[in-house]
């Protein structure tokens, strides 16, 4: 196995069963047995035989129209869902910024929630202790950090969540539609932080529709089209063709 590989996707196929009215209880399962077996025939193939190798230190953008399978691929990489066929291996600590604030508990203070949230990313108490000042400073919450999270505005909430996620010292960051957090000032700060992580040699995979961000941030782009990789290469080349076809 090559040493400098961060994520390796081999022959991955992902399908979803389409349910029109999903039977979750036993009664429904029995009553609608014939119906549900028909419904199960509607299988949506979201990703078809994807092969992709991402090296350590690369910044990759996954682009494509809605429904092309970008987010599904990202979720597969985080192991939230699993492929039907094929294999995905990752090397190094991985953090996803797909959904921020996972595990936040409204009644607990911001500080307590930092511990909850960071522990979900697999950090130990000691590691969080070492990082907590940096996280609080980054969130710019100041004294509010010791108030219950339910008293926060949605902007404050997201700022806290983002600060934790970006400060957990991951080797690989998976990001779905970044920089929609907080005001202009905070967004710029997040962008700077990501640049800093990129320079520090972290592997970053971004799903975005903002071509601006792709150009500014990534070295490589992968264009997904109807569940297949249509083009993979340097940002300029891929974007040019993407915009020509889809723009």
């Amino acid at each position, binding site marked *: 196995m090559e040493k400098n590989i961060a994520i390796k996707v081999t022959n991955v196929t992902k399908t979803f069963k389409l349910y029109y009215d999903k039977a979750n209880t*036993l*009664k429904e399962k029995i009553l609608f047995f014939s119906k549900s077996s028909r419904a199960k025939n509607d299988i949506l193939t979201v990703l078809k035989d994807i092969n992709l190798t991402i090296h350590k230190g690369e910044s990759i953008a996954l682009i494509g129209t809605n429904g092309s399978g970008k987010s599904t691929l990202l979720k597969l990489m985080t192991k*939230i869902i*699993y492929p039907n066929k094929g294999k995905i291996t990752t090397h190094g600590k*991985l953090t996803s910024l797909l959904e921020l604030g996972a595990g936040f*508990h409204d009644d607990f203070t911001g500080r307590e929630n930092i511990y909850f949230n960071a522990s979900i990313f697999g950090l130990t108490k000691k590691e*969080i202790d070492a990082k907590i000042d940096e996280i609080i400073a980054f969130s710019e919450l100041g004294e509010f950090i010791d108030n219950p999270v339910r008293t926060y505005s949605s902007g404050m909430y997201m700022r806290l969540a983002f600060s934790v996620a970006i400060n957990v010292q991951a080797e690989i960051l998976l990001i779905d539609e970044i920089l929609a957090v907080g005001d202009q000032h905070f967004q710029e700060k997040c962008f700077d932080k990501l640049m800093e992580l990129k320079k520090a040699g972290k592997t970053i995979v971004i799903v975005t529709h903002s071509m601006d961000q792709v150009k500014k941030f990534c070295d490589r782009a992968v264009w997904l089209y109807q569940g297949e990789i249509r083009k993979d290469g340097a940002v300029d080349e891929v974007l040019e063709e993407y915009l020509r076809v889809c723009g």
Partner: protein
Amino acid sequence: MGDRMKVFRELYQYRELLKNNIKKEIRGKYKGSWLGILWTFLNPLLMLAVYAFVFPYILRVNVENYTIFMIVALIPWNFFTTAIQSGTGCVVANGNILKKVYFPREIIPISITFSQLVNFLITCVIMFVFILVSGVGFSYHLLLMPLLILIQAVLTLAITFILSALTVFVRDIDHFVSVFLTLAFYGTPIVYQASMLPAKFQWILQFNPMAQLVEAYRAILYYHEMPDFRMLWIWGIISVVALIGGYKIFKKLEKSFVEEF
């Protein structure tokens, strides 16, 4: 072998999450209520008061110190039943977070069993106070209690693994479990003596691990005698096998959890 080590290594890596979840489970339950954590004591105490008041009048159990006779069985039973009840729906209840982020999924059932175990150990303090005050007192048999607790915890975790994973796919299990637990309460010699059960029903006790455990608790805490070691061995081994099997089932099913929410 490498795989088996990986299981423990990952759990060790996520120990802070496990600890936080257990804490949240214990503390969060009563957050916002006036008496807070005190309810951990009050809840079993009040329930005990009800049982101790009601059962001597309907069931003619001729034992000395009926309250102690019952409490040493009821409190372990309570651990079992609350752990299974809250464990059955635990994966479903955490569906939202499972959809958002990866962490070893088994942390959820494990933290339910452990938080209930902690609650149980706290209520054991009340039980010990009762045993002392009533004059029943303790004997060296008490030293066997950790063994009983261990078997019970392993059994509980095994069942929780299986039920919590299956409930994701068939939500009705939750309801079956509550009914079944109510039934099992009467199929376990908690408020009555095992010998009071008619001969034709005695087999139930043989196949009910909780009946065997409850009898063992009662032997060491109430009768001050040795428990039935043969039965403890049998159920101890079954529990360990069930735990390994339950874990494997859970790991197999966890891959499609998220698509069911």
